[in-house]
């Protein structure tokens, strides 16, 4: 069997965080009563006309700058024509041959280490359609979402597998959220992805026939759908067949992609410049102003975390992977936690607990102030690191504060020398053979004595003091 290389390009639709719709002053709001966020323009009423939302333009420009694009001084809105009940005008206002942003890039981390630069072909603005909900014998349309502004971000076919695709998506997601361009909410469909994918024998220059996978709204679905699609296409080619150019959907329950429409059934969208909207011309200095007001992006934040908190590059990278995580960390520090200790607790204990929600720290029941309080107890020596893990678990599960738990369970660290000396004496008396062996050079037994002492203190003895007393009483090894 030949070795095949997948060639993947992604198209992401990110909902722009503007207060109102792309072409009319109706509020964009998720979860409102169906068809209550609709005006003459978003309903496509006869005589209604679109007027471009300047806030949406600014957000799209910001996306372009965050992704290193060239911002076009002049771009054009076009009509994309097709009939569907959730598209009341019978066309979608989009951008076609003259988009707002061109030629950017994004660096993604690779599994084997290092980074890869992925090209961004273009970013254009468009309006969303409404939402159709299909029932057995009828379909209902909700136009609340119709006319919501989107940025469509199109990558070059630079990605070579599910891992790279998902790394690209995660990074893109993080950047858009950092830049306050998009809230990134996947469940609400505010960040959706279409995948263009083909395979070719490794070493071949020409692209294979591509399929488009539509509307994937989770990173895991993207990975799975790509894995499935690579295998499917290879199997076809290996069996002597040809991959058909088509649009495919993802059946999450079955874990399969399925054909939606063939190339022959593909729409002819009959794009042409929308005569209702003059070309968008950005005045001199506009792009500079947007650039100057850009929120801190992940790369800058990472650098700052290393410089001002003394974190390792690795920890800084991990903590800035999402905007919410970086904000959680900084909130802990503001609450008085030592930066490095807080970083360790977040990256190990907290993220382990949040594994099921892909590390989404906004879903953590433990708020930064609570975690900071725990870190402070460790810092001042009230509890040991080991005890702290128990306390953390209990805090996470019960929502009680660290102080409450420590108080209720009497977990305060014992830092008096007298009781510790007594426990050490007990241990040395109980294990004379081991003491002998240790003194004879079996240094490995040291940990055993520490463990026995801690056991007798019910874990509350100050580990530093235990060390000090043990070393003194055991004397040096032979």
């Amino acid at each position, binding site marked *: 069997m030949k070795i095949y290389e997948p060639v993947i390009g992604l198209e992401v639709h990110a909902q722009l965080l503007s207060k109102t719709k792309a072409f009319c002053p109706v509020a964009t709001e998720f979860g409102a009563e169906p068809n209550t966020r609709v005006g*003459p323009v978003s*309903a*496509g*009423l*006869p*005589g*209604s*006309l*679109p*007027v*471009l939302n300047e806030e949406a333009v600014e957000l799209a420009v910001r996306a372009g700058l965050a992704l290193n694009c060239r911002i076009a001084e002049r771009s054009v809105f076009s*009509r994309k*024509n097709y*009939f569907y*009940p959730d598209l*009341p*005008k*019978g*066309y979608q206002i989009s951008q076609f041959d003259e988009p707002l942003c061109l030629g950017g890039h994004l660096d993604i981390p690779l599994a084997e280490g290092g980074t890869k630069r992925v090209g961004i072909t273009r970013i254009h603005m468009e309006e969303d359609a409404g939402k159709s909900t299909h029932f057995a014998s009828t379909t209902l*349309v909700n136009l609340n979402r119709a006319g919501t502004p989107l940025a469509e971000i199109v990558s070059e076919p630079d990605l070579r597998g599910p891992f790279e695709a998902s790394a690209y998506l995660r990074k893109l997601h993080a950047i858009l959220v950092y830049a306050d361009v998009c809230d990134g909410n996947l469940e609400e469909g505010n960040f959706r992805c279409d995948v263009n994918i083909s395979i070719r024998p490794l070493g071949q220059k020409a692209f294979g026939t591509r399929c488009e996978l539509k509307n994937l709204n989770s990173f895991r679905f993207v990975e799975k759908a790509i894995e499935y699609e690579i295998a499917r296409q290879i199997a076809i080619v290996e069996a002597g067949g040809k991959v058909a150019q088509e649009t495919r959907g993802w059946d999450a329950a079955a874990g399969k992609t399925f054909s939606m429409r063939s190339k022959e059934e593909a729409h*002819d969208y*009959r*794009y*042409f410049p*929308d*005569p*209702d*909207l*003059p070309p968008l011309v950005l005045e001199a200095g506009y792009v500079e102003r947007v650039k100057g007001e850009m929120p801190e992006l992940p790369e800058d934040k990472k650098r700052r975390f290393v410089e001002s908190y003394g974190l390792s590059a690795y920890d800084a990278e991990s903590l800035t992977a999402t905007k919410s995580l970086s904000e959680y960390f900084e909130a802990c520090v503001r609450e008085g936690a030592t930066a490095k200790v807080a970083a360790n607790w977040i990256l190990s204990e907290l993220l382990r607990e949040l594994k099921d929600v892909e590390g989404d720290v906004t879903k953590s029941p433990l708020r930064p102030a609570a975690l900071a309080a725990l870190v402070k107890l460790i810092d001042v020596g009230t509890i040991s690191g080991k005890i702290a893990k128990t306390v953390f678990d209990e805090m996470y599960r019960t929502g009680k504060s660290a102080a409450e738990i420590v108080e209720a369970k009497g977990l305060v660290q014992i830092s008096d020398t007298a009781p510790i000396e007594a426990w050490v004496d007990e241990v040395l008396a109980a294990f004379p053979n081991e003491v002998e062996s240790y003194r004879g050079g079996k240094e490995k037994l040291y940990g055993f004595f520490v463990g026995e002492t801690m056991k007798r203190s019910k874990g509350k003895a100050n580990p530093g003091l235990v060390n000090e007393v043990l070393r003194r009483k055991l004397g040096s090894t032979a």
Partner: protein
Amino acid sequence: MSRISDLLNADFETLRGALDRREISAVELAKESLRRARATNASLNAFVTVAEDSDALGQADAADVRLDAGERNAVLGLPVAVKDLILTKGHRTTAASRMLEKFTAPYDATVASRLKRDGAVIVGKANLDEFAMGSSNETSFFGPCRNPWDLDRVPGGSSGGSAAAVAARVSPFSLGTDTGGSIRQPAGFCGITGLKPTYGRVSRYGVVAFASSLDQVGPMCADALGCAALLESIAGPCAHDATSSKREAPKFLEETRRFRDRETLLGLRIGVPKEYFGEGLEPDVRAAIGNSLAALESSGASIVEIELPQTRYALPVYYLVCTAEASANLARYDGIHFGHRSEKFSEGTLEELYAMNRGEGFGDEVKRRILLGTYALSSGYYDAYYRKASQVRALIRRDFERAFERCDVIAGPTSPTTAFRLGEKSDDPVSMYLSDVYTLSLNLAGLPGLSLNAGFDAKGLPIGLQLMSRWWEESTLLGTAAFLQKRDPSTLRLSPVAAAFAAGVQP
């Protein structure tokens, strides 16, 4: 013969003066206007909907209150007919299509809200060609409108009802829309004055779109001063229309009056394009336009021969651009959100539902244009048709830029012929399209143009003189027209239908 009836037949200044001096009331005027609308509608069919008494008289009463309080503006208290392509809140707005037969406008077009703001009284929704697609008013789902000069003839189109309503003096004013000549050609056929403003001068918000880059709303009135008054009310920036210009509208009425009262037209250069006097131009039309040019010259204007070499491409370019835009603009009429829903449909696919709704809801001319436009935009044809048309459109615009270096106003016939008979051209789309051959270029260039009566042919039918000016110079057009109308009031002669009203005879 009553005082009110006389005044409704009079020129704008006379009527305005009587109302301002409180010699008559807006309610009296509105009553007479509504009476005439109802009395003539069986024969003329100028209205798709005549306003309810309670509605129109309520507006008139409010206008009287404002007039009594001393408020004055050019349209306050005057009846106006609004082309049924323009949304007026609470009224049925049909675009003369079965598709929108039952559509009640849920909001006011900007032009409608400005008329209401200024206290004009909307007396009805005027008939038109379906979705403004036509040159004779024969494509209306509600039946053709007829010409008040000869009921066997068409009033022109698409703003046929608007033109006929004024020519019959049912209302002193009407609003039309002009995409390729739809104000000027019917104004010419009906012997009245109609202005297509510069593209962007008047908001298109709330006007059912036909071809967005060409459509403009404009005033129609017996005389140029009335057009100036109506334009002043509706013109100016609109936040709901991204193609409306930010420049403030001038005081059209004042500027037009000043121009009218000039001693001479010395310094005014009139350009005459030789391309507008070629084959197909009726001799009577040619003669009348010649007389108008002579009148202009004898008043001191200089006549310059000019060239508009791209004129011959205007027709094909226009029919590519307008049909392409229309094919998208009319996509929303699918019977799902609004529009005609087929009663025959019980089961089938979504496509079948669309096809039935649209198949039943649209008339032949509308379907013809949707098909043409869809084809012109199709993958593989776009470059050859739509893109090429857009490029030639730029050349047509350049023709005018060059011409206006040598003249201030371009003059020529509005149409090659006078009003033709009903049915004469309805089976021959190309000959119908040719009746707009002199008016299309202007829309492609976005320029303002006006048609006024220049006299009558041997059959007694009105002949339209078209004037065009540089962008934003409507006042020059209105002023020149008012100047000519002051010199030769015979051009303001009443149509037989209006004359019958004056004689107290039921037409």
